[in-house]
C-alpha cells in the first residue's frame, strides 16, 4: 500500500493537481470577456497590471487591507492557517526526502521547530475556523456541508501528519492514512473550491484590473484596499 501511494499514487495525484489546476486557470482567463465583464482588459495594460498587482499584494499582507484590519481574529486565523497549509507540504524535511527520492528534486527544508509550530497552527486555526462557522450567525447561514468537507480535506493531512510526527498510535497505519489524505487533497483541488489556490490570484487580479482600468485606477492614487 505504501509503495502504491508513494509510487503511482504520488505521480497521479500531482499530475491531476497540476493539469487540473492549469485547465481551471486557462478556462478562467478564456472565459473573461471585456464587454460582459465591462473591463477593457487589453486596452490599458499598464493600468491593468498595476491594479491587479495592488489587489493581490495588499491582500497577501496580514492586516494589509481594511477588511483584514477590521476583523483581526479572522485575519490571524486566516494567515496562520494558510501559511501552514502552504509551507508544510513544500518545505517539511520529511516531504523533501520523498520528493528527492521519487521526483529527483526537492525544495529547501525548514527547521523542525518552525514546522511543528506551523502544523499546530494549522490544527488550531482549523478548529477555530470550524467553530466560527458553527457559532457566528453570519457565517453559519452561509455554511454548507461542502464547506465543512473542504475544511476536513485540508486539515486531515495535518492531523494524521502530526500523529506520525509524534508517533502516536500505529505509525504504519497513520503514515498511509496521511499520504492518502494528502493525495486526496491534491486531487480534489482542481475540482472543488480548493481551486482557489490559483483562482484567488486570478479573481483578485481581475477585480484589481476592474478597479485599475475602469473604476478609477487611472485617476488619483488608486484604491486603498
Amino acid at each position: 500500500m505504501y509503495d502504491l501511494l508513494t509510487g503511482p499514487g504520488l505521480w497521479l495525484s500531482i499530475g491531476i493537481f497540476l493539469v487540473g489546476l492549469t485547465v481551471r486557470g486557462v478556462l478562467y482567463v478564456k472565459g473573461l470577456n471585456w464587454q460582459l465583464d465591462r473591463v477593457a482588459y487589453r486596452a490599458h495594460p499598464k493600468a491593468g497590471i498595476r491594479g491587479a498587482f495592488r489587489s493581490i499584494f495588499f491582500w497577501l499582507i496580514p492586516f494589509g487591507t481594511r477588511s483584514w484590519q477590521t476583523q483581526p481574529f479572522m485575519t490571524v486565523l486566516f494567515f496562520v492557517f494558510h501559511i501552514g497549509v502552504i509551507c508544510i507540504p513544500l518545505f517539511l524535511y520529511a516531504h523533501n526526502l520523498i520528493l528527492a527520492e521519487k521526483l529527483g528534486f526537492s525544495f529547501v527544508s525548514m527547521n523542525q521547530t518552525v514546522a511543528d509550530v506551523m502544523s499546530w497552527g494549522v490544527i488550531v486555526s482549523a478548529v477555530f475556523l470550524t467553530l466560527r462557522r458553527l457559532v457566528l450567525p453570519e457565517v453559519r447561514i452561509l455554511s454548507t456541508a461542502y464547506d465543512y468537507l473542504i475544511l476536513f480535506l485540508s486539515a486531515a493531512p495535518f492531523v494524521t501528519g502530526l500523529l506520525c510526527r509524534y508517533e502516536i498510535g500505529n505509525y504504519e497505519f497513520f503514515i498511509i492514512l496521511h499520504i492518502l489524505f494528502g493525495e486526496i487533497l491534491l486531487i480534489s483541488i482542481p475540482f472543488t473550491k480548493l481551486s482557489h489556490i490559483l483562482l484567488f490570484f486570478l479573481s483578485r487580479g481581475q477585480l484589481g484590473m476592474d478597479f485599475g482600468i475602469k473604476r478609477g485606477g487611472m485617476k488619483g492614487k488608486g484604491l486603498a484596499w
Partner: protein
Amino acid sequence: MPEPTLCNKKPIQTEDALKTLLSDTGGKQYYQEMKSLTVDSRQLWETIQKTCKSRLRTWLNICAHCGMCADSCFLYRINNRDPKQVPAYKIQSTLGEIVRRKGKVDNAFMHMAMETAWAKCTCCNRCGMYCPHGIDMGVMFGYLRGLLYQQGFVPWELKIGAGMHRVYNAQMDVTDEDFTETFIWMVEEYEDEYPGLTVPVDKVGADIMYTVNAREVKHYPEDLAEAAILFHLAGENWTVPSRGWEQTSLAMFAGDWGACKIQVESVYDAMERLKPKRMVGTECGHAHRATVVEGPYWAGRKDGLPPAESIHYVEWLAEALRTGKLKINPEKRIKEPVTLQDSCNYIRNHGMKEITREIVSYIVEPGYFIDMSPNREHNYCCGGGGGFNGIGLYREQRNKALITKRDQIINTGAKLVIAPCHNCWDAIRDLEEEYRIGIRWSFLKPLILKMVEIPEHLKPKE
C-alpha cells in the same frame, strides 16, 4: 397564457404605453399582475449560459462562505445584523440559486429575488472591497437585476424609468425642446446680474460639452443657471447639445441593458456631432457611472472610454479653482462645521476621493471640515443608491437604510452636508425629513456661487 397588460416582459417602447403605466398610481395593478407573471425558464437559462461567464461563475463557485463581507454591508448592520442580509447570502440565495436550478424558478422565487436585488442591495460595491477573493456582489446584483428585468420582475418606477429613456432619451418626460427652452429661459433670468451670460447650444468644437440630469430641467432649473454662471465666470468655451444632453440612466438601475445602450449612445452621438474637447457632467453619481464608467461597454467601445474625455463636475470645479479660473473670496468661505458625502458611484467606483477634498480645501475655512467615518472609498452608501430612493414599494426599507448615513452625519457634528450627487442629496434630504437631525445639505454649485469672486469685466455696469 397571454402576458398581463401592465406587468410583462416587454420593455416600454411608446409614449402611450408609458402613460398607461404611469396612470396606474403606485403600481397597484402592476404589482397585482406581477403575482401571476410566469417565468420563462428557458429564456432565463439561455441568457445565463450566454452571459454568465468565468468571472461571475467563479465568484459564485469559489465564495468561501467566510462571512467577511457581512460587516461591510450597511444594510446588514442597520437591520440588526440579520444573517439574511449578509451579502454572500443575498447573492447565493438569489443569483446562485437561479444558476444552480438552471433557471427553473417560480413566481414566488422571483418576487423574493426582486426584493433582494432592489431593497437589500444598492449596488454600492462596498462588499467587493472586503472580500478576500475579490468577489464584488454589487456587480453580481447588477447582473441579477438584468435577469429580473428580462422576466418582468422589476419595481414599477424603474420599469417606467427605463421606458422614459427609451421614449424620451431622458429619465423623465423631458423633451429635447423642454431642455433647451428651460436652459435658455433660466439663463435669461440671470442676464442682468451677469451681463453676457448665455447658453451656447450645439456649438461645434467647444472646450466643454455640458450634460445634465433631466430632473434639473424638470424640478431644479436653478441648477442649470448656476452651471451656466460658473462656466461664464470661469471664462469657459462651453456648450450644451440640443440632443444627447441627459447623462443619467434609470435603465442602469432597472437592469434594462438595451435602454442603457440607447441612452448612452445619444450622449456619445452628441460628442461625435459637436466634437468637444471634453464632456463635463453635472453633480450626479450614477449619471457619471452610467455615461462615463459603464457606458462605453454598453456602446461596445473597446477602449472602455467615451468618444471624448469625460469628467465629473467635481473634477472640472477642482481644476477651475486650482488654476484660478474661479477665485474664492476667502472671507466667504464656509465657517461652520461641514462634512462631505462620498458618492459610491464616482468615489469608490471612479477614484475621485482626493478631488472632492481638494475642493473642500478651497471653500472651507481650515478647521471646519470634519470627515465622516468611514470615508473616501470606504464610505457607506447614502442609503438611497441604486434606485432605492425612487421605489415606493420599498420605502420603509429605504427609510431604515438612511439611519446609517444619519448616524455618520450626527457623529461629525456638522450642520451642513456637501452632497455632490443627486441620489445622495435626495437621501440626505429624506433623512432630515424623516429623522429631523437639524442639518442642511447642498450641491457644490450654490455654495460656490455664494463665495466666488466676480471678475471686474463681468460685473454689471451701473
